[in-house]
């Protein structure tokens, strides 16, 4: 009987030892993507009696879409500045001294419950040794004007789900499409949120720097962004997913739709952008054929993601 007991134990130790481990799905989803939900301080700038705390997700400004929060505090009274007109302008300067901006919210909105001014910026490039980025923040308290010029660092966005693209449309306007959400998609129906912006071409020559008219961007109104997600991996043969919903504008000035990802990995969001009049500004229909071994051709307008 002892022998039997031993035998039983040995067998079941063998049984339990070399099992293939089950995949930890939640961990699987976060290997390529990290979801940041906490706003952390990027930098604090002091000007006169005021300290401006610039906050962004993960305390970092990335290439692509960034929501920003500005918290302005009177250092004397330790009270937050409320209901002021705060303006925000990011300026890139390249090695030749040429300046440009990127889609942003110029007039920041005051949020009374949270005591901050909120806005966004879609940084079109990272800052490095040749390209620098500065924020021009201005506000007025009573008659006193404050203007701050703060250099910042724009980091590379490693999460491709916050990827962006810039292009010139068939109307010769400059457009920007930046992914806003989801940061960490799942094998699921995902609510896809993007910002679509346009550079408002100046009609007059530049005045004194920084001349706002040279750096004007706006969210496009009532456009439609047609969506066809596909897997670019050749062996996946142009695989796609069902039940996707094209993106349309909602009250938050962002474009909302639904993208279904049928499995993790590389995906290409093929887009066609149409303006309110239904004219195609950029993008081409992609093949819906299943072509195992052959990578499907992408639309002229697309963003690659990975999760």
């Amino acid at each position, binding site marked *: *009987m*002892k022998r*039997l*007991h031993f035998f*039983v*134990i040995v*067998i*079941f*130790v063998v*049984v*339990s030892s070399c*099992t*293939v481990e*089950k*995949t930890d*799905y939640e961990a*699987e989803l976060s*290997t*390529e993507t990290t979801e940041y939900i906490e706003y952390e301080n990027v930098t604090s700038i002091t000007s006169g009696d005021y300290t401006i705390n610039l906050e962004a997700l993960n305390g970092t400004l990335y290439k692509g879409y960034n929501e920003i929060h500005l918290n302005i505090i009177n250092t004397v009274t330790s009270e937050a500045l409320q209901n002021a007109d705060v303006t925000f302008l990011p300026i890139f300067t390249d090695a030749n001294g040429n300046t440009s901006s990127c889609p942003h919210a110029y007039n920041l909105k005051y949020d009374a419950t949270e005591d901050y001014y909120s806005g966004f910026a879609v940084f079109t490039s990272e800052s490095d040794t040749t390209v620098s980025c500065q924020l021009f923040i201005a506000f007025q308290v009573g008659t006193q004007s404050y203007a701050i010029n703060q250099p910042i660092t724009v980091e590379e966005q490693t999460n491709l789900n916050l990827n962006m693209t810039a292009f010139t449309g068939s109307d010769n306007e400059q457009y920007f499409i930046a992914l806003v959400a989801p940061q960490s998609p*799942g*094998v*699921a*129906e995902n609510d896809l949120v993007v910002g679509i912006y346009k550079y408002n071409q100046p009609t007059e020559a530049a005045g004194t720097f920084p001349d706002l008219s040279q750096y004007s961007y706006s969210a496009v109104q009532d456009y439609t962004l047609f969506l066809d997600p596909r*897997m670019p*991996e*050749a*062996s*996946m*043969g*142009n*695989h*796609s*997913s*069902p*039940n996707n919903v094209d993106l349309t504008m909602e009250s938050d000035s962002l474009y909302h739709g639904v993208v*279904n990802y*049928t*499995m*993790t*990995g*590389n995906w290409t969001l093929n887009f066609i952008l149409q303006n309110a009049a239904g004219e195609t500004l950029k993008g081409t229909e992609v093949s*819906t054929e*299943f072509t*195992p*071994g052959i990578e499907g051709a992408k639309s002229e307008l697309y963003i690659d993601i*990975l999760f």
Partner: protein
Amino acid sequence: MKRITLIILVLGTFANAQNTPIKRDSSDVVLDEVLVIAAKKNKIETDMKMAVSVDEFLASSDNISFIKRGAYAWEPLLNNMSTERSNVTIDGMHIFGACTDKMDPVTSYVETNSLSDIDVKSGQEGSMHGATVAGSIDLKRKSTAFGIGQTWNGAYQAGFEFNNNQFFNLGNVSYSSDKLVADGSISYRKAKNYTDGNNDEVEHSQYEKFNTSLGLAYKTTNLSSVRVDAIFDKAQDVGYPALPMDLSLSRALITSVAYKQLFEDKLIKVWDTKVYFNAIEHYMDDTTRPENLVHMDMPGWSTTYGLLSKVNLKTENYASEIQINAYNNLSIAEMRMYPQDYSETTMFAYSWPWVTTRYAGLSMSNSWDISEKSQLNFGGTLGVNYNYSKYIEFNWIFHPGASQEKTRFLPNLYASYKFNTAGFDASVGGGYGHRAPSVSEGYGYYIYNSFDRYDYIGNPDLKNEISYEANASAGFKNKKGGIQAQVNYFYIQNYIIGRILSQGSPMNYQSVGVKGYTSLDHATLFNFSMHANYSILDNLHWKGTLTYARGLDENKNNLPFIRPLSYQTSLHYSYQKFGIRTSFNGDLKQINYSPEYGEDETPSYTNWNISADYTFYIKNYKTVFQLGAENVFNTYYSTYADWGNIPRMGRNIFTSLKIDL
């Protein structure tokens, strides 16, 4: 898996604890008698072969046919319906395969030398252990009765089959005393590729299987006993020539603890309660197929625990069994695809997104002897089936907003009336029952079916399948022989089957499209079988079987995997210690095939088989030696249910030797 180890260690200790000194007790007779009755002995062998696999044995049953994906692990079709519609259990315990592609039907996790019998019930009569449409297949394990003195019994069987170089060793031993009973078995089979009727090797048809089982029963009082059972099964390097991948390893651990209480002079005769646990793991392997464009890992796990408690009541002309059956199953299957550039990220999805199935049912079966000539059998089950998909977002891709939790009520009812007089017997019966969709039908996600080459998607909100069933049989028997005919007809509402979806695109590169499990308005199935035997001489016996089936969907199109007219006829001649058997069997041309489900017309075939055996004694141990050949003409054929028309085995000479110890 750690949990399993723990349970097993506990079980092991428990088993050891049973080994208390054996006490003699003279008043054990009642228990012994009842247990002897319970331990019905049937030999697991077919007319042709005495050493068969579970599949070969099941194939000898009239209403079972098989989908074959290779030489191993055939999927049993009961009444021409696939395994979702039947209940396959081991001693009433529910077990669910861990493979999304049905490479591991429950029958592949047992071995013949640990089984005493296979109980096949057709239609709603099989609903005792849970909701069903087609019926039930219950694999009964060997369970030796308590004896008066100490006795040892055993058998050893070895054999070799020449076609695929299959070598097998099967051994089992049992010990019986008045307090303690032990049954043990161990087996090992290894086969290489088989060759078809054109003498071509069918690649990827090898297999290797190890199975062992242990059962220990201890008599706690005169009228009660405790029994612990465990089966461990391991198959590795199993080829599936009809599929684009093979199996690297599948493993099952099947355990139970049962308590049996007998009652004297009461209406209740036996109360038998069992708790069980089984865990199955299944790892597919496509690295053996270099032609595959995409390498995939496809592991699957299925874990079930459950409870079975039943009482048997008996009066003079009435017998009844009341049973509570509950189980919880968790099925998980993953797929991870590797890009051609291995430095790129892999692609992952669940093909079974952690699907829990819970079932609890109360069933009753009654048998009432109205008179000496007639009997009424009736019964039913009321079950509650609950499903939960942990990662429901996978299912939402095709079915947005589908329910994550789903509770279904599953009633099953049957009645039949039997009549016999002067050698004639007849029966009529009917049944009504619901079944819930299976895990794949409800929650499957991109399960590739290499038969019709579609990826299948489950639908969590499928309706219950509802079966209306009628059956009848008639027969005549006398000393010389008998003839028996059986028919049954199923009208199945909300018949679940895959239909092409207009949305989505295939994920598996061999696939041509996506099919979703859909409810047809109805489908109908008709099965007929006729069976006759006749003793030409005292030592020359003839047997014949004829079966026919027809399955139609709502538009009168053929259903897939319906057996064409098939026949079998055999002769058995015995002379002193020699026995000779020969048989012809075959199917006619499959005219009623279903192109919609990937079927094509399968030509007819006939097989001739022959075998001879010789019985002798080695030191008082009865020994039988058998030599035979299957498919003597070396016919090249494949049947209607051979996945992807893979050819069946050509001429196979088999030998086996069995010693009863």
